[in-house]
């Protein structure tokens, strides 16, 4: 399967999905007006990728800002990963990186932990 890459822009995150290593990452800002349309190919790739069993997947989020619209899309990503684990298809690790002191980004991670059934590691980083 081919890798997926979307370069970052002012309102679009950098998306780097490596099919062979299972390392998937979304980083930067996300406040696209049409988040459903923008994330559609991302979800398509993920669906195809998650159809392959027995993978070790690491999904990393390293966001500086995202709007409420995007927060819905991320919830969908967590749901897809949860489904993959629940069906014993493979092993998923989710890392939620936040800039140390960014209490809002930390809180967003905590809310995803509360609102989903996947394990999410909250990891502060210093720039």
């Amino acid at each position, binding site marked *: 399967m081919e890798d997926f890459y979307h370069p970052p822009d002012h*309102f679009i995150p950098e998306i780097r999905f490596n099919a062979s290593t299972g390392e998937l990452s979304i980083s930067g800002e996300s406040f*696209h*007006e049409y988040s*459903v349309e923008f994330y559609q190919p991302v979800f398509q790739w993920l669906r195809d990728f998650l159809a392959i069993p027995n993978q070790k997947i690491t999904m990393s989020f390293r966001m500086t*800002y995202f709007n409420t*619209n995007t927060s819905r899309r991320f*919830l969908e990503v967590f749901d897809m990963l949860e489904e993959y684990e629940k069906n014993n298809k493979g092993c998923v690790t989710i890392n939620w990186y936040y800039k140390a002191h*960014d209490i*809002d980004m930390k809180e967003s991670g905590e809310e995803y932990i509360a609102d989903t059934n996947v394990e999410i590691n909250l990891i502060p980083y210093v720039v």
Partner: protein
Amino acid sequence: MEEKFSNYGFYAGFRENKLSLAFQGMISQDLLSLIGLSLRRKNDNEMVAKRLFGLVIELAQNIYHYSTEKAYSEKDKKEVGVGIIAIGETDEHYIVCSGNRMDSRKIIPITERCDYINNLDDDGLRLYYKEQRRNPSIADSKGAGLGLIDMVRRSGNKLTYVINDSGEQFAFLTLAVRINKNFGTLEN
């Protein structure tokens, strides 16, 4: 517009209300990025700048999708909303507000929604946000639902709305929220 038009009226109004930024027109993504940049440059408190930016984004997206005054965006290849975004301040607060034309039939649902959100406490807001984020019936709508809740949560203050209703087909909606200048000072 007359060629001899004077901007003094705007200037005086801006000064009187301590407006530091105001924009009227089509709210494009590029414009929003620029606003974000200027907020970060101006503000030494990174958290406040980020929250201010978040408030601008959510208000702008309301205009973009729901203003009944539209203009054609060459970049998006579709009609997008036109409106006003402004940031003003008092000694203790920044005030972010939007203004746009709206469908008069939406006056009651919008005011009810703002009132409902304004009456929730922190836990209520959290639960309502969680529930709305999971709500499939609005999940694909154009971002409706979460923005207003998020604004109240991020700012720590209630929404203010003013509706100029002339009894015609369109009304004019002003939405505002204030945020404490010292709110969200860096914590561990």
